[in-house]
């Protein structure tokens, strides 16, 4: 489930990056509201993912997939070419994410054995109006 949360957080991060571009320095209302909402959603889902994932793994994948998605969609939207350098970088990020996934959902050893079925998550309240994360 934490990986699902992390993917959702990355999707919010991509929306955040693209809508930030559209705000033109936070001078336009709707893109600005979307930016703040996407940043809040991204950080909130990241925090959910980090309840079980290592922070090093979670943060790195979050920024990695966010960059990858934002630049890929940006390339499609703004009709930029996809050069060899970009393709190699793209594959490096995807390979790294798969590598981290394969090396396990391991949490810190100091956390001790995890109960097989943790109780239902206590839903916290996201930070109201959290500003831009990235």
């Amino acid at each position, binding site marked *: 489930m934490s990986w699902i949360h992390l993917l959702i957080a990355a999707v919010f991060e991509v929306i955040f990056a693209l809508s930030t571009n559209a705000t033109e320095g936070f001078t336009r209302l709707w893109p600005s509201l979307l930016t703040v909402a996407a940043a809040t959603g991204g950080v909130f889902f990241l925090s959910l993912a980090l309840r079980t994932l*290592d*922070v090093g793994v979670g943060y790195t994948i979050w920024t990695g997939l966010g960059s990858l998605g934002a630049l890929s969609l940006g390339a499609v939207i703004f009709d930029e070419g996809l050069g060899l350098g970009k393709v190699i970088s793209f594959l490096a990020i995807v390979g790294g994410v798969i590598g981290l996934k394969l090396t396990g959902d391991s949490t810190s050893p100091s956390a001790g054995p995890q109960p097989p079925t943790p109780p239902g998550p206590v839903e916290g309240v996201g930070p109201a109006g959290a500003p831009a994360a990235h």
Partner: protein
Amino acid sequence: MAWIYLLVAAVFEVAFALSTNASKGFTRLWPSVVAVTTTVVSVYFLSLSLKTLDVSVGYTIWTGLGSLGTVTLGAILYKERITTPKAISFMAIIGGIVGLKLTAGA
């Protein structure tokens, strides 16, 4: 001066990641307050540095240092284990981010 701002921004970015981790899904008050505060300060200092630095360079260094610091301090503070396959994966992702940003232009 822009580089000082960028370093300060990266330090706050690492503090943001670590406190978000400690907030346990924003169910704990003080780590949540710290997470929100540090991300505001981080973005503010990033924006100061971007007044003179190129955005592709500034943003890349910001997230790159953020990842390196988070992985390193996560290992120290939270005893997160870094195996060789994990280290290679981290380097692939961080290298990929740098590569994407540098080939994307400003």
